[in-house]
Structure formats: structure tokens, C-alpha cells
């Protein structure tokens, strides 16, 4: 588990290729490193970012998610976001990032969709 004052991140490997990144708290310029550190060991192609417990995400947070997606795309995979709601969901949609990676309601839905890839 990685943590700072505002954000906690844990990872759960689903398969060798798919890891779920569970973030809880607020994602901003100072806390994105918590996310980066928690997925540093992940070498698979897919990450599902579970943002159910995230209440705030600023543009630096979005920028990090896009960077992570680019890393995974470089390996032939992609990022999927799950559970984003309220403010965070709106922020992702306003930034049109649903044009870059999928937004799913739940982690299960995201994992199922990835299994179909």
C-alpha cells in the first residue's frame, strides 16, 4: 500500500497481465506519485484503475492517467477506469478522456471487458 496525506493506493493482480489499482482519496499534482509508485512493479498490459473511493481529481491527476495509458498502450494494452462517480466521473468526461480509454461502472465490468480483448 502506498499512501500520503490525501491518497492511498493498493494493487491487486487479477492475472499476470491485469492489475487493479485501487485509489482512495484525492488525486492531484502532489499525490499522483502515490499511484505511480504503486504500479511500478506491474509489467502486464492492462490496469484497471478503481476510482470508486476517489472524491477529487485535478488536471495533473488526469495527465497522470493518460501517461499511464500511454505506457500500457506501448505494451499493446490499455488503461480502464472503473467506479468513477460524481465529480471524478464528470472531470473525466469533460476532459473527453472517454475517447482514449473506457470508463466502466464496476471493476468486474472492466475486467470482463478486458478478458474479451
Amino acid at each position, binding site marked *: 500500500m502506498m499512501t500520503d496525506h490525501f491518497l492511498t493506493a493498493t494493487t491487486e493482480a487479477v492475472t499476470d497481465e491485469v492489475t487493479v489499482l485501487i485509489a482512495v482519496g484525492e488525486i492531484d499534482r502532489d499525490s499522483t506519485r502515490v499511484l505511480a509508485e504503486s504500479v511500478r512493479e506491474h509489467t502486464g498490459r492492462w490496469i484497471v484503475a478503481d476510482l470508486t473511493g476517489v472524491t477529487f481529481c485535478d*488536471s495533473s491527476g488526469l*495527465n497522470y492517467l493518460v501517461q499511464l495509458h500511454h505506457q500500457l498502450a506501448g505494451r499493446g494494452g490499455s488503461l480502464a477506469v472503473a467506479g468513477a462517480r460524481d465529480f471524478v466521473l464528470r472531470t473525466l468526461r469533460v476532459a*473527453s478522456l472517454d475517447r482514449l480509454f473506457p470508463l466502466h461502472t464496476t471493476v468486474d465490468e472492466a475486467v470482463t471487458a478486458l478478458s474479451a480483448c
Partner: protein
Amino acid sequence: MRWFEALQAVLGDSHLWQPGDVAGRVGAAVSPLGLRTTIWLIDYEQVALRALPEPGRDTPEPLPISGSLAGRVFTRVSPLRGDGFRWWVPMVNGTDRIGVMEFEAEDDQDADFVSKCELLAGLIGHLITTATPRGDHLDLVRRSQPMSTASELLWRMLPPLTVSCPRAVISAVLQPCYEVGGDGFDYALDGDTAYVAILDAVGKGVTAGVACAVALAAIRAARRAGGGLAEQARAADEALIEHFAELRFVTAVLAELRLDTGRIRYLNAGHPAPLLLRSGRLVRELDAGRRLPLGLADPRAQPGEEALEPDDRLLLYTDGVTEARTPEGEFFGVDRLVNLVERSAATRLPAPETLRRLSHAVLDHQGGPPDDDATLLLVQWSAQAALDTVPTTKADDD
């Protein structure tokens, strides 16, 4: 003839003005008319008017915009008579509000005195604009605190806050003005087309400022090379990808308004949707034309289209406006923004004054230093709104 000679003295002198000379030289030119002048410049935060220091005179304290006669002249861009033999006249560059000029006479004046003062203030407004870059003095008068490096970079990139032509007004406001980093805007009013852009670079400080500057410059270069919205966005994508080692995106709305037909085309690169207001009411958010933020190529994107009606207003804003939070965490929000803009329509305030009040409402809501840049840009497709930004004696209707 004496007024002509005064104008001639000011203009003839101005070629060699150093910024610190302005108040004294203008004072010397008008003293044969029995007049004493004080030149007041608006500060960056648009809260107070600050007097230009003049050798041999005590510099008066700043005058607050809110609650002073000078402030009223500034907000309405319309002259007013003060106590005794004193007149206050707005000073603009085109329609960009620079400040106010105070005229103090020795005795009562004839009916066309104010129009002569307006003529002089009109000349001084333009001359101050040209004299400002010659040194630091005039710019420093407008500051209540030092400016960050990012802000210095950004302000030099931006066009004047307000521009008008017979058919439209475009006006913008940025906060926090001394520490603004990643927000920016641009416009071009050429022929039958008005281009506008609002930008918000990810992150803060100089890095965000540089990203914004790069995107803005790429958009301008593409536009000036004859490129449309898609080319402008693509140029910004390429420039951001080329010049930054890591991903750095900039959200933006790029729009072009046909001034003859009111037809508007726009691309929304991951930015809050522009608000369309008609007869003082929100008609809808312009939620088409979506693409990824600038810096992330999105070749599939298609511009959105909308038909404006005469006197429509289009409000563009960055997320720093709606995401401004009180110390308790309450967002400013779109509803509050819409509510304030709708209310402002009834007051018939000049566009820059509407925006000044909106931006201060955002700052007041936060009750402390803002977390993020907050920028507002208003386009009014309206001949009347354009006239309202021109400094003339107008009916004082409130």
C-alpha cells in the same frame, strides 16, 4: 486653440516620454488651460484605481472601484462630474479599460468641456499603452504585489482583455492575476470572422505557463497561415508533443464566429462546454465538437456548430471557475455561474464589467488564495454591446 495646443504638446512630447514622465508632462501641457490632471490606472486585480506619481505632488491613495465616483466612471466607461469643478473621464485603449483621468478646473466650464476632456483622455489612454513597454514604471503602478515568473510570461502572451468591433465584443478576465500560470486566451477580429480560444494547461507555475504559451503560439501560427480550427488544434498537438519530454496536455475551446451570420463552429478539447445565453437566460451548453485535450492527437474530431441570434452571449470558462471551493469545500459550480451571468444581463453592464464582477464573485467564494487559475471569456454578438464598451457620455439608467 489652447486645447489644440495642449494636445499638440502632449503628442509631440510623447515620442521621448519615459514611463515615469507621463503624469508630469501631461500636467505641464494642460496647466495653460487652468487645469490640473491626475491619471489613474486600474490595477491588475481590477479592485482599485492607482494614481500615477507626479514630481512635486503627493500621490493620492488608491481609489476602490466599488463605492467611488472614479470607480463608477471606470465600470460604466462613462464620464461623471464630481464635487466642485472636478470631472472624471474614462481612459481606454480601443475599448480595453486602462483607467480614469481626473480633471480639476479653477472655475465652472462650458457645456462641451467634458468632450474636450474625453478627447485628451482618449489620447492619453493610447499613449500610455504605447509608453508602458518602454520601462517598468507604468506596469508597476498597476501592481499591488510582485508577479510570479509564470505570470510575467503569460501576461506578455495575451492580447488586451477587451476588444470590440461594430458587431461584437470579446472580453476576458484571469485570476489570480499575480500568480496565474496555465490559463490563457486569444482572439482575432478580422473581416467577417471572430476567432476565440480559451486554454488551460495541466499543472501549475512556469511549466504550465510554458505549455500554455506553446499551445497559444502554435494556434496563432496555424491561424495566421490560413488554417481552420482543426489545423489550429493539430498544430498545438504537434507543438506540445514535440517540445515536452513528458505528456503535457492543454484543454481548450477553439471557436470561430461569423460576424455576418452568427454561425459558430467550435472544437472542444477536453474543456468545460461553452454556455450559450439568450435574452439573459441559459439556452444550452455547447456540448458538441469534442476531442481529446491539445497534446493528444484526435484526428476523428469534428467541429460542433451552432447558430447565434443577435445579442446572444457565449461564455467560456476554465474549470478553476466552477471548481473554486470555499474553505468548507463547497464548489462555486456551474449553477452559480449561470445564475450570476443571467442576473448580469439585466444590468446592461459593459462586457468587461460583467466579467470583472464574475471573477470577483469566484474569488470571494474561495475566501482565500485560489488553488487554480480561473479564466472567463465572454463573446457578445451584439452591436449594442459593442457600443456599451465605447467611452461616451451615455444615459445613466440605474
